[in-house]
């Protein structure tokens, strides 16, 4: 890998609520190169969306980035001024939200969305030129150019998500963050949208961050996978090794609990218990109350990330000093 495009170093985000302060994202680091896909997988409340938003300084109030650095092409993103940051969003890092229904303006035509995005960042472009670019972009994502004068409600869910993707790539960003881009969609549409993201990634050389709760999707579509649990990185590894030799008990549990359509007579095993309340975390490792392998030390100390092989880290005491594999 050459010089990575995006480097995230020790990022932590906190939410200050009336009930107390919670760390939704705790000390997350990773790097991402051109044309690479990183899959971030976790349950609701694991901090995966907050992590995605914090990369472009968009953490919603009352959240605050309390520690860490984000470098994009060597430039420190979180030190940028407000207007510089605004400039960076859209042109260099783009965010695709989960719900295409609520992220398009219902009283604006599809074309006007493009005009707005393009002209905000490039004021010298005329409206006509922007619309021309819009119809080309729509064609790229597989929508007929006539649809440019439709309103969002006239499009199906899958088409709306395609419009969101076209808007995201309108200014040729180098990093695209897709936050549950297919959760609201049917399987066939989901497969098509993911195919589209893959092919755009290859043809534009973008780096893609795919945030989802569905481990099957990231196993199939990404180069590397970060498994998040209760705000922390539980395991971070290349997809293939993660699949063949999962190390963290949570990853192992997840892999055993998802049905695989290619297997017959699969026996699924459930992970017991519930994800913890971030305001009321168990002492020690955040996963121990649900862990089959937990021992004394897990209740007392918070495990750090151990380097457990080439290119991979895991947050589990079983890997302290190359400890035995579960």
């Amino acid at each position, binding site marked *: 890998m050459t010089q990575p495009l995006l480097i995230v170093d020790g990022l932590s985000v906190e939410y200050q609520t009336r009930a107390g302060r919670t760390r939704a994202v705790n000390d997350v680091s990773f790097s991402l190169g051109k044309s690479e896909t990183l899959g971030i997988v976790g*349950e*609701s409340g694991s901090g995966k969306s907050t992590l995605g938003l914090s990369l472009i300084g968009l953490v919603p109030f009352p959240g605050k980035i309390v520690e860490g650095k984000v470098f994009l092409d060597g430039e420190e993103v979180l030190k940028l001024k407000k207007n510089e940051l605004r400039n960076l969003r859209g042109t260099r890092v783009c965010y695709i939200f989960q719900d295409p229904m609520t992220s398009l303006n219902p009283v604006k035509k599809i074309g006007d969305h493009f005009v707005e995005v393009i002209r905000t960042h490039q004021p010298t472009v005329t409206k006509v030129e922007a619309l021309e670019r819009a119809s080309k972009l729509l064609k790229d994502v597989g929508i007929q150019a006539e649809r440019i004068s439709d309103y969002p409600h006239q499009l*199906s869910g*899958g*088409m709306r998500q395609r419009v969101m993707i076209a808007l995201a790539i309108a200014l040729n960003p180098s990093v695209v963050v897709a936050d549950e881009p297919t959760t609201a969609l*049917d*399987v*066939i*549409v*989901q*497969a*098509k949208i*993911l*195919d589209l993201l893959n092919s755009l990634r290859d043809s534009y050389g973008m780096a893609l961050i795919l945030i989802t*709760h*569905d*481990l*099957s*999707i990231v*196993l*199939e*579509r990404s180069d590397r996978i970060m498994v998040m649990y209760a705000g922390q990185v539980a395991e971070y590894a290349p*997809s*293939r090794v993660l*699949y063949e030799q999962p190390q963290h008990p*949570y990853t192992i*549990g*997840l*892999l055993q*609990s*998802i*049905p*695989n*359509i*290619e297997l*017959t007579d*699969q026996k*699924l*095993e*459930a*992970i*017991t218990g*519930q*994800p913890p309340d971030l305001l009321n975390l168990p002492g020690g490792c955040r996963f121990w109350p649900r862990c089959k392998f937990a021992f004394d030390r897990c209740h007392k100390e918070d495990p750090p990330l151990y380097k457990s092989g080439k290119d991979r880290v895991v947050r589990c005491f079983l890997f302290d000093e190359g400890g035995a594999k579960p």
Partner: protein
Amino acid sequence: MSAESAEILRVEHLQKYFPVEKSFLEKMLTRNRHFVKAVDDVSFIVRRGEIFTLAGESGCGKTTTGKLVLKLVSPTGGKIFFDGADITSLKGKQLRELRRKMQMIFQDPYASFNPRMKIGDAVGQPLEVHGLAKGAEKRKKVLEILERVGLCPGQKFVDLFPHQMSGGQRQRAAIARSLILQPEFIVADEPVSMIDVSLRTAIIDLMLDLRKDFGLTYLFITHDLAIAKYISDRIAVMYLGKIVELGDKDAIFSNPVHPYTKALLAAIPVPNPERKRKTTELIGDVPSAINIPSGCRFHTRCRYAEKSCSEKEPALVEVEPNHFAACILTEKPDTAE
């Protein structure tokens, strides 16, 4: 499941058309009415003790079929038999009697509980509605069923409000509520799709356990074929209000016949980075249920479509024992792939 097992539910040529509301002006100007054909001539049999799955994408009519079976909406046409008796036009007291035997688990455990009602009261309410138990006896039954579905100790959960529980616990409570009348037949409409991945398997395993203990039959409704494969005995794949393929689980997954089933199976993500992915070959989006294409309703998106597909609607025919498909290709096996 042997073929001789007694049937518990039979549905014949079931139809449900919802009228499309028009504006006042349109009503004055035109006379023809439009309908959303949510369920259009669906027939199937559910055998006692099995898990029969209706699978398909949103808008294919699977949920409406589930509601029709429970008489939560009344059909436009067709007949429903439960335990051999025609229940299509049951009303009032007889219908209420019947509902003791058939219950439903809804998709959204947040929306299916009254937020101002304690879990114990909500779970026990069916007992009062049917006049089966009150007071201390009701409480005892509620505690028993809560503990059976894994909400232990029941004492701790009866006085909670729905918002004080997690999604998984709420769905367990919903299962408890559907079981308290000791029904024979349960319609489960996407019971795990709103639940976190790590908790799904536990809910599904609970449903499988309960089937054994209570001798239940499930009509399972899902869009997720991976879950359908794990849980079901037989599967019916629906497309735009019609069943396009129906058969034993193994037949559907190892030998899918209908092009739509094939596309659906190919689109499912497989948790395996080694797998070479085939790209989807379906053209376009699902057509509107108001303007259903002529002939085979799938022909607008089908790679194998020929001229006759748009003219004649294919019937559901048996392609091998107990495996049915509605596709013109199956009538000429040499061209089918």
